[in-house]
């Protein structure tokens, strides 16, 4: 934007230079009028340039908000829906979908305020409750070039997908009522405070707005992925294994759905990461590129390890790898170079593969759809590697008093940042573990977290929602009367009755 204004200034000065010789011939009074109208036009030009940037940034941020919503529905809903058994597909999709509605209402009433209004180091206040004062004027603290309302709706989409990620851990066995209650409490007491700590003004971990423990988290590695991944593990352990796990095969019922879901997640992630630049800037481009590169490298790494170990590269492995890479690049997307992104992607593909297979088998927990293995492990790995690879050449987030950029990550010359990253991860983990445990206990006492064994065998689609995802059998209804069906039936019945009477 600055360069644009500079160009306009230069062009305008040139314009004046051309005019000047002509002005010599004119009377003095006329010359004075020209200069005052020049100032007028200059300020108009500045206004127009500002409006142009605002229009560009706002357009990108609204598209980004829509992209992030698309990650939850249909992206995550399809990804998870395909991985469960046929009897649970609708219930699994519904868990993601209903959170799009529930968290939105919470956000409007008090959530945005708790996350982003002024408060203490841990949580915001009620300054923006009921979206009071959140309108067309930009909030210059967070994003000076877009309407405050755009910033609000964009951040909402992160609050929607984070609890939705957790649903994969307790898939196929949690009551719908308990799930709703758990998520309302979890989002209120874990997500909103964590979002405030990392992104809110004065938050404890906020690197850009003067947090005491500045942690680099560009698009939500700790807030979204570490918090949801660790909470997911707590849920999986608290609810226990699905009946029959791991002796009975619990194969994904439709990997084509999961495939489409994973691809939608990949595309949606451009809104998630590149959108986190909060403007249509070169930083957004940089985050877009690193996001894409990490996903590609991780897909190859996961499928490659499988190929070496098992003899075949699987489709679920390649797509899961891409998601793992996207998770891992999330905290560093706007801080690292494209080559670092490739390295982060490879690391995420290998580590998350081992976490979902070897580690899960060794410990025996039933994290049904691998939320901890992918989001918990990938998010933690990404937050650590952000501390390693963050570079001031990409994003000069730390500056000295003279405004000169300071080293950001370990390889940039700021080894202390690693401690901050570890501190940020540890705080997110503690909040998530302790908070989730308490909330699960409360929900269990109030409504009971788990469906009955009979309901679990029947499936959540029928027992929780009274529907089935697929009607694949024969159509057993009669043909309509117009085709002889309904009229023929009573006729035949009459003939049979006559025959019996004879």
């Amino acid at each position, binding site marked *: 934007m600055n360069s644009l204004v500079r160009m306009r200034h230069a062009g305008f000065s040139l314009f004046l230079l051309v005019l000047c010789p002509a002005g010599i011939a004119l009377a003095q009074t006329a010359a004075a009028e020209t200069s005052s109208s020049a100032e007028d036009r200059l300020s108009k030009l500045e206004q127009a340039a500002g409006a142009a940037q605002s229009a560009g940034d706002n357009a990108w941020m609204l598209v980004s908000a829509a992209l992030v919503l698309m990650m939850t529905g249909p992206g995550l809903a399809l990804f998870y829906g395909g991985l469960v058994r046929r009897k649970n597909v609708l219930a699994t999709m519904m868990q993601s979908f209903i959170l799009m509605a529930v968290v939105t209402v919470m956000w409007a009433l008090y959530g945005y305020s708790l996350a982003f209004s002024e408060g203490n180091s841990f949580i915001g206040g009620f300054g923006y409750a009921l979206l009071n004062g959140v309108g067309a004027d930009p909030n210059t603290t967070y994003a000076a070039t877009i309407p405050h309302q755009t910033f609000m709706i964009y951040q909402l989409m992160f609050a929607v997908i984070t609890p939705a990620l957790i649903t994969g851990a307790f898939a196929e066995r949690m009551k719908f009522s308990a799930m709703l209650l758990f998520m309302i409490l979890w989002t209120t007491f874990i997500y909103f405070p964590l979002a405030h700590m990392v992104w809110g003004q004065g938050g404890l971990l906020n690197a850009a707005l003067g947090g005491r423990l500045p942690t680099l988290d560009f698009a939500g590695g700790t807030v979204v992925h570490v918090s949801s991944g660790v909470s997911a593990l707590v849920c999986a352990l608290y609810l226990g294994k699905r009946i029959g796990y791991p002796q009975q*095969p619990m*194969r994904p019922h439709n990997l084509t759905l999961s495939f489409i879901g994973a691809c939608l997640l990949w595309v949606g992630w451009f809104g998630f990461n590149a959108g986190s630049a909060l403007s249509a800037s070169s930083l957004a481009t940089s985050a877009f590129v690193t996001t894409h590169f990490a996903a590609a490298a991780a897909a190859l790494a996961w499928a490659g390890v499988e190929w070496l170990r*098992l003899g075949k590269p699987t489709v679920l492995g390649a797509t899961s790898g891409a998601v793992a890479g996207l998770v891992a690049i999330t905290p560093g997307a706007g801080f690292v170079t494209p080559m670092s992104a490739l390295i982060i992607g490879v690391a995420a593909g290998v580590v998350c593969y081992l976490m979902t*297979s070897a580690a899960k088998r060794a410990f025996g927990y039933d994290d049904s759809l691998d939320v901890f*293995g992918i989001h918990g492990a990938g998010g933690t790995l990404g937050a650590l590697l952000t501390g390693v690879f963050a570079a001031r050449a990409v994003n000069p987030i730390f500056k000295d008093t003279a405004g000169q950029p300071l080293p950001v990550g370990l390889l940039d010359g700021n080894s202390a940042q690693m401690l901050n990253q570890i501190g940020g991860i540890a705080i997110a983990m503690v909040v998530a573990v302790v908070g989730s445990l308490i909330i699960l206990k409360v929900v269990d006492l109030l409504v009971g977290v788990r469906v009955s064994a009979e309901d679990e065998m029947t499936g959540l689609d029928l027992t929780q929602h009274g529907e089935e995802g697929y009607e694949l059998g024969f159509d057993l209804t009669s043909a309509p009367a117009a085709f002889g069906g309904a009229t023929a039936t009573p006729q035949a019945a009459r003939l049979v009755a006559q025959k019996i009477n004879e």
Partner: protein
Amino acid sequence: MKKIEAIIRPHLLDAVKNSLQEIDVKGMTVGEVQGYGRQRGHTETYRGAEYQIDFIPKLKIEIIIPDDVEDMVVYAITKAAQTGKFGDGKIFVTNIDDVIRIRTGERGEAAL
């Protein structure tokens, strides 16, 4: 009359059907079934977790035939469905008391 039930490999359905058409068998019923015999199932791997899948998809065909063509029908199916490996399937032969063609009410072999 006899009922011939044959469990076959799914991809050999066309071969069996053509073979039966050669000897003038006039119809058949086919269904998808799953089961296991001597052919061992296979393993599937999802995110590193291996599953042993015992029930293998097969097709079951059913045909009703006059007594005198039994040997020929069994030969036709065996020839078309045989690969020589475990999993080729089985043929079951049972007696049938009566057959009725719903359209006309004809009974016995006339209804075949």
